[in-house]
């Protein structure tokens, strides 16, 4: 059972990831490819900003009235023969799916890639119950064979080279050593087809739920989701309660934004729009369709107007691809199912804050994530909000105590800054010290520690106020 790295140890995880030259090369190549593809896709979409605003307006409206749309989805899906279940936490969700697996799987489930099933650690539970759960997305299957968690929410094995994957396949399924990507893909197709033909239960997530029709929408490129949702006798979809949109017509804008943001495609290869199980006995498709609506910490995010937009996320992965931190340290360092900027936002809210207190600090707050976000989530603002919660505490969570030195420095800083003359004197001293002994001071604590990952700029010879005064005189 793959385990995440300890998320409290982000700094140590990151330091180790930085030593992995191969992984950093893969990340660098991926970042360049993603940026170029997204850029090309946006050039064909002159109305991009209008689409973003529309999508966010729909999400805001839905979240503000989420109880209404959840009930409406339940009513309409049920009317079409789907079974709607509710799971307040991960434990309830896995119990519901486990029951279905025991009843229908015949010992084997096929899975579409779903971050939500990763979040509740569904595979572990099924495995313990002796039920085989096979990931069928190629990247996700590679990670499953390697015994690793996904590295990226869209491209789970993005950190692995073709050589590493060829070696893994040679060892696990007996492909010839040194096979190229087309040969590896063909081997995966053949191996997984045998699983599709035998599995009694298909397990998927959902990209969007449509309240007015009770439908699920699933996007993909490979075709494995089509197989998961149409070959086995029973299909169960696990979806967060935030996946709702009110109307069928709302899918238009999300279908425009999601693929372009994620992979730079105008549209992903396949969309499955599923409404209930098959309606006539002789038809193709599953006999039963179950939808599990999962809360697991999501409803809490509705409470505050700052945190509520966290639930607008459509899991496109664009913020990971542009993040200077993710680009260096990759997905595993975060120790969470959800890595990158959006992961640093949702993980501390889904889990007890104290467990993920390091993640809101795993950002330079440069704002690239906010600029690319297709639903305009102000991620830096959310990170600052969460940092404040970590530092000052929230109901039920005591404030994290800052280091004594930091506390003293902040207090001294506040004292000095509130006194203009003293401030002027202090900055004058700092300039003098910097000029006389800067390089030496940088090597001594506490500056040496701060300097380990940063450049210390040299202070200007004249401060702004002096230069301003001189300019006004001349």
């Amino acid at each position, binding site marked *: 059972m793959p385990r995440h790295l300890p998320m409290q140890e982000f700094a140590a995880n990151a330091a180790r990831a930085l030593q992995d030259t191969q992984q950093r090369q893969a990340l660098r190549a991926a970042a360049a490819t993603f940026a170029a593809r997204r850029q090309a896709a946006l050039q064909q979409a002159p109305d991009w900003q209008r689409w973003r605003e529309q999508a966010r307006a729909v999400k805001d409206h839905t979240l503000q009235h989420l109880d209404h749309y959840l009930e409406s989805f339940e009513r309409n899906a049920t009317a079409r023969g789907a079974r709607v279940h509710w799971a307040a936490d991960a434990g309830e969700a896995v119990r519901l799916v486990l029951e279905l697996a025991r009843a229908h799987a015949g010992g084997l489930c096929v899975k579409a890639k779903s971050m939500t099933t990763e979040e509740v650690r569904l595979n572990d539970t099924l495995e313990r119950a002796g039920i085989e759960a096979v990931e069928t997305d190629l990247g996700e299957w*590679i990670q499953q064979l390697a015994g690793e968690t996904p590295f990226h929410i869209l491209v789970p094995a*993005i950190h692995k080279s073709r050589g590493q994957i060829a070696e893994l396949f040679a060892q696990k399924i007996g492909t010839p050593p040194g096979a190229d990507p087309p040969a590896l893909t063909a081997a995966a197709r053949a191996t997984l087809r045998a699983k599709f033909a035998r599995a009694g239960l298909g397990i998927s997530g959902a990209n969007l739920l449509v309240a007015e029709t009770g439908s699920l929408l699933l996007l993909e490129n490979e*075709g494995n989701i*089509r197989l998961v949702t149409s070959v086995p006798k029973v299909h169960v979809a696990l979806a967060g309660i935030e996946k709702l949109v009110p109307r069928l017509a709302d899918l238009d804008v999300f279908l425009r934004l999601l693929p372009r943001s994620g992979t730079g495609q105008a549209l992903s290869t396949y969309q499955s729009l599923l409404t*209930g199980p098959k309606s006539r006995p002789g038809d193709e498709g599953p006999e039963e369709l179950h939808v599990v609506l999962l809360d697991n910490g999501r409803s809490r995010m509705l409470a505050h107007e700052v945190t509520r937009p966290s639930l607008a996320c459509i899991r496109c992965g664009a913020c990971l691809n542009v993040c200077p931190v993710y680009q260096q340290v990759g997905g595993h360092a975060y120790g969470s199912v959800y890595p990158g900027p959006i992961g640093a936002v949702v993980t501390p809210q889904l889990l007890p804050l104290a467990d993920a207190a390091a993640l809101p600090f795993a950002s330079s707050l440069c704002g690239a994530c906010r600029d690319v976000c297709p639903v305009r989530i102000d991620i830096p603002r959310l990170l600052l909000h969460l940092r404040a919660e970590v530092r000052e505490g929230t109901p039920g969570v005591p404030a994290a105590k800052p280091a004594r030195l930091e506390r003293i420095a902040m207090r001294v800083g506040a004292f000095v800054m509130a006194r203009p003359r003293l401030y002027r004197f202090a900055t004058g001293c700092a300039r003098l010290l910097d000029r006389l002994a800067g390089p030496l001071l940088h090597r001594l604590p506490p500056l040496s520690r701060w300097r380990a990952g940063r450049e210390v700029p040299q202070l200007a010879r004249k401060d702004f106020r002096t230069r301003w005064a001189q300019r006004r005189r001349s």
Partner: protein
Amino acid sequence: MSARETILGAVRGHLGRNAGAGVGPPPPVPLLGRVDLDGPAKLLQFGERLAAVGGTLHLGLADGGLAAVRELLHRRAPAAVARSDAPLVAALCAHADLCRLPWLSPTATKQELFAADAGVTAAQWAIAETGTLVLVHDDERHRLASLLPPVHLCLLPAARILADQGELLRTLGAPLPPAVTFVTGPSRTADIELQLVVGVHGPKELHVVVV
């Protein structure tokens, strides 16, 4: 308390809403794509976009797609060809030039479909803006015939090409059938070093024959 009540209670509590509280209208749905293309322009755009995603367009307007399908199938010498139950497909299969091919029944089993070398279906709609086929599985039995064989041949009546996906969503309307599939090009993956490989779980080749 059931999980349902727990969740709805938590949602309402955090939003400060009462059960059954009213909902204003959601934001209006604007037109997002182009809707001003005429028939030939839509066909042209559909063909361009289909080619861009690795599909191939064939024109069969004069003969119902006979020549194109004959050429595509005969050169493969298939051992088994899946087909849907669409009248367009049935008419084609019955033609003297094609009737000797090893057709499976439209109600073939999953096992037979897994082993088929090609699948012939029709499409209910297409979207010009993205080069997408829309398969409405209530109207035709093509959920697996369009997915399992390595080659998918799809007959598309030219008049069924819509301008954009917004128009499609308005056309589908209620009640929705249990499954609608949008197909834009052959199955693909980029999960190994972001290198594009076609034909992972679905068809490796997609041929659209406009009739």
